[in-house]
Structures are given as C-alpha cells and as structure tokens.
C-alpha cells in the first residue's frame, strides 16, 4: 500500500529515475547472487570429469552428460530407495499432522475446557526447546524398544507439531461463528461442525501447512542422522550427506544427486508460491 507514495515521495523526476535504477540494480544483483550457486550446481551436474576440473571454470559443458544422472542409480544402489523413503516418511508426516493438528487446533480455537489456555501457552513455549533436548531421550527410548533404524522412528514423533497447531488455530479463529451457530441449531455436534464446516472452509490454511511441512521435513537432516544407521533406510537428504562424506570429490554426481533431491522442493514451491508468501506474512507475524 505504501509503495505508490514511496515512488512519488520526492518531486524531481530525475531523482525518481535514479532511485528506480538503484532499486533495479540492487534487486538484480541479489537475484543473480541467489541463483548463481544453483545454476552452477546444474552446470556441474552435466559436465565431464575434465570439465569439472577445468580452470578457469567453464559454464556450459561441450556435451551435456546426462549419464551423470543415470549413473546415480547404477553406482549408488540405494539412491532409488532414498527418494522412495523420503516420499513415504514426509507424506505420512504431512497427512498425520493435518489430521492431528487440525483437531487440536479446533479444540484450542472453539472448545472450552479447563486449562485450555495454559496448555496452549505450553505448546508455544515448547517451540523454544532445542531439538537436542528432545533427540537424546528419543534416541534412548527408541533404542530400548527397537525402533532405531526404522522409519517409524522418524514418522511417529513428526505426527504433530506446535507450529502446525498454532498456524491452524490462528486460521480457525478467523472463521465466523454464525455458520456454526446455524449448524448447532440444526442439532450438529462438535464432530459434525469440525468435519462439515471447519475443515471444508480451511482448504487454504491446510494447504499452506502441508507445503511448509513438506519443505521442512524433506530437508530435515538432524533426526535421520541420529536415528538411521543403515544406508537402505536413509532419506534423500541424509543420503546426500552420506555421499558428500564418502564420494567427496565426485562433484558432477554430487551435483546431479543434489538436483534430483531438490526437484520435489522446487515443484512444491512453484505450485504453491503464493501460498508460501502469504503464509509467512500472516502466520509468521500475527503471534
């Protein structure tokens, strides 16, 4: 809203032009810096070994070596599995959280029960607890019940989160009460209202949460690092770190693997870009 008047803030035409130019140059420079490392990753992923180690660096390979990609599957026998594992783990976490968090958020937004606000503040406070505090007992308990190196060790702790409950509660609070009052007159209980009114109206909020959960959990490294042991069980993020350690100068294929591991994130981002930006703008701040 303030943008229009910033432009016309000063009378002189040449001043305005100069400012515009500076703004453009700044924006373009930062865009270049933001994208350059990713472009370099793509470029390296399609090079031959000689081109990778050419100096000065060469941006466009003579021949595009797509076999850097296909050899990921043949040389790293678990590469396939890592991607499948990531989709499975992240998919189940997203679905689980949408169900569990939306129910809790509904309770916090609409139901009256003793200690509601206290519990809610405890949830908010729990976001400050460092991951380290939780991961140590998680590891200990999972090692006692034989869950180390299994996927449920990653899925089960991820099935609810304070941030998910918080985001959805903020959204539910904006849904007008009138709809529910009308439904209640018709004899609908809490469950019917949750299922038939709240959830259908919350499509955008649920989608935003799903997108964020996908991005965060796909990128999660610390929990898989601690809880997984054997390469067939790795997620793609842990797998890439594993290759980074064990094949540390195999640059063209490290970059190819990176490109593959980033494609789902980029696709989700492209599909839901507006949602992400609005999600940050509304839920990030109105706390």
């Amino acid at each position, binding site marked *: 809203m303030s943008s229009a*008047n910033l432009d016309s803030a000063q009378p002189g035409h040449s001043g305005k032009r100069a400012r515009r130019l500076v703004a453009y140059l700044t924006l373009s420079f930062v865009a270049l*810096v933001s994208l350059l490392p990713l472009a370099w990753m793509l470029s390296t992923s399609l090079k031959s070994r000689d081109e990778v180690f050419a100096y000065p660096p060469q941006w466009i390979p003579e021949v595009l070596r797509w076999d850097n990609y296909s050899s990921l599957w043949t040389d790293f026998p678990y590469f396939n599995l890592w991607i499948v594992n990531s989709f499975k783990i992240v998919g189940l976490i997203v679905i689980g959280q949408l169900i569990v968090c939306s129910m809790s958020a509904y309770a916090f937004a609409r139901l009256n029960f003793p200690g509601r606000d206290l519990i809610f503040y405890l949830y908010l406070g729990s976001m*400050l607890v460092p991951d380290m505090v939780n991961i*140590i007992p998680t590891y200990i*308990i999972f090692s006692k019940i034989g869950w180390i190196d299994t996927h449920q060790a990653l899925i089960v702790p991820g099935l*609810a989160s*304070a941030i998910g409950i918080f985001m959805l509660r903020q959204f539910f609070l904006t849904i007008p009460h009138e709809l529910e009052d009308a439904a209640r007159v018709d004899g609908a209980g809490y469950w019917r209202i949750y299922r038939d009114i709240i959830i259908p109206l919350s499509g955008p909020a649920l989608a935003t949460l799903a997108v964020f959960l996908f991005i965060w959990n796909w990128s999660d490294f610390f929990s898989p690092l601690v809880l997984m042991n054997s390469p067939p069980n790795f997620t793609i993020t842990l797998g890439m770190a594993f290759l980074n350690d064990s094949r540390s100068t195999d640059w063209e294929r490290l970059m190819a693997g990176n490109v593959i591991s980033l494609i789902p994130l980029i696709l989700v981002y492209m599909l839901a870009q507006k949602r992400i930006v609005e999600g*940050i703008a509304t839920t990030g701040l109105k706390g």
Partner: protein
Amino acid sequence: MFIGPGLLHSIVFIIGMVVVSALVSTWRWDLVSPPEFIGLGNYQRIMADEMFWLTLKNTAFFVLLSVPTGLALSLGLALAANTKLRGVTFFRTAYFFPYIASMISVAIVFRWLYNSDYGLMNSFLGWFGINPIDWLGQCSTAMPAVALLAVWKGLGWNMTLFLAGLQAIPSHLYEAAQMDGAGRWRQFWDITWPLLSPTTFFVGVTSVLGSFAVFDAAYALSGGNISRCLTFYMVYTWQQGFQNFDMGYAAALAWVLFAILGVITFVQFRVLSKRVHYELG
C-alpha cells in the same frame, strides 16, 4: 476428544522427552552399562570443559557474524522490493529459492564453490587479482564462509517478513510526512523504522534462535570431517551423544544450551521490546 491425539502426542514427545532428558542429564551413562546417578556432576564437568567454552565461543561468533548481516541485507532488500517496479514478483521468486532448498544440498554446492583449486569463488576473486584462498581449510575464512552461506540462505525468508511489515504501514503517514517536507531519510527513521520494529524484533529473535542451532551447514561443508573451528555447540553435543555415547553429558549440554537460549531470548524481550512500537504496527 479433539485434543486427544494431539495432547497424547505432545505429552509423550514434548513433556515426556523433556523430563527424561533432564533425568538423563544427572547420569553417567553410555547406554550399555547401568546408569550411575551423579547429580550435577555433568554440569560441573561442562564448566571445566575447554571444548564447551570453545564451541560456545564459535557459535556466538557465528551468530554475531550472520544475524546482523542477515538483518541489514534483508531489510535493505525489502525496502528496494517495496516499490512499484516491473518484475518484482520474479525477484521475490528468485530470492526464495535458497530458502526452500535443503541446507545439506546447498552446503554441498557451497563446499564446491569454496573449493580452493577449482572453486567458483576463487576464480571470481581472481578477476580482481586476489590469490586463491583455502576457504574451508583455515579458521579465519571458514567461519565467514559458513556465515555467508547462512545469510544467503535466509535472505528470502527474512525479506518476505520485512516486506509484509512494510506493507502494513499505512500510506497516509508518508503522505503527511511529505507535506511537512520530510525527506526520504527522515521518513525512514521517523516512520518506517519505528513502525517496522515489531517485525525487526521478531526477525531478530528468531534469527538468533535459529543461528544458535547451526549444525547442517557445518556438517555438509566439512564433508564428514568437522574441523575444530567449525565445531559449533550443536556439533559438539551431537559428537558427545552419538559418537562417544556419553548420553548424560550430551543431555546436560543440551540443557545448558536451552538455558542460554532462554536467557538470551528473555533479555531480548526485556531490553528490546520497550523500544518496539506496537500501537500502530
């Protein structure tokens, strides 16, 4: 009934784990032999542990290097983007790519960029006649290298927050200021800066919390062999817990981190929130 599943989950995974973790921090335990209760022994050991102080110093240095830089750059960028220019949407999309990419992947890319013999960074600096630098091989450059990666990755996120804050400032305030003859600089300090302060505060507090937990970047930039100068607090705690299996000590280290973060956040709220203007923002 609604809160049931969520509550059960958090009782186990938040409260339960916090309690167990506090308990374990009073033990000497390697997971195999029976635990031995040593009271505050682990905490006493921490205070005398040279590596604790070193890793805390490394982490604090990283926070001081990356957070103010990140705040200043993202605010500047948001100011530049908060104008009616063609193509602003494209720019915002570009800035956000580093945020959505996983830290492990981009840190692997940066390890390649920082490569001393074939890296893009040194070849770029070569244009200006600067000799190749072994970025990750020495402490004096490894720390700024990690900070640069962190700032680069967080820029789009922080800018989006600042932009939302800027767009919430009512435009009539600027119009009034112009009528009074206030220049752009005055407008920034008298209107933008105070009214943006809730956003700045929020971005600052969350950046400090996030930066204290730095782990992935140091891990992947090191390629499996984390040097002393990139051993941050989380890295050290992880090594104690999951490489030495000194569970009690690692749990105590985690609690000390929690306490440090709690104090820092509390101080930020006490000192800074007085200067935050909420009336109009």
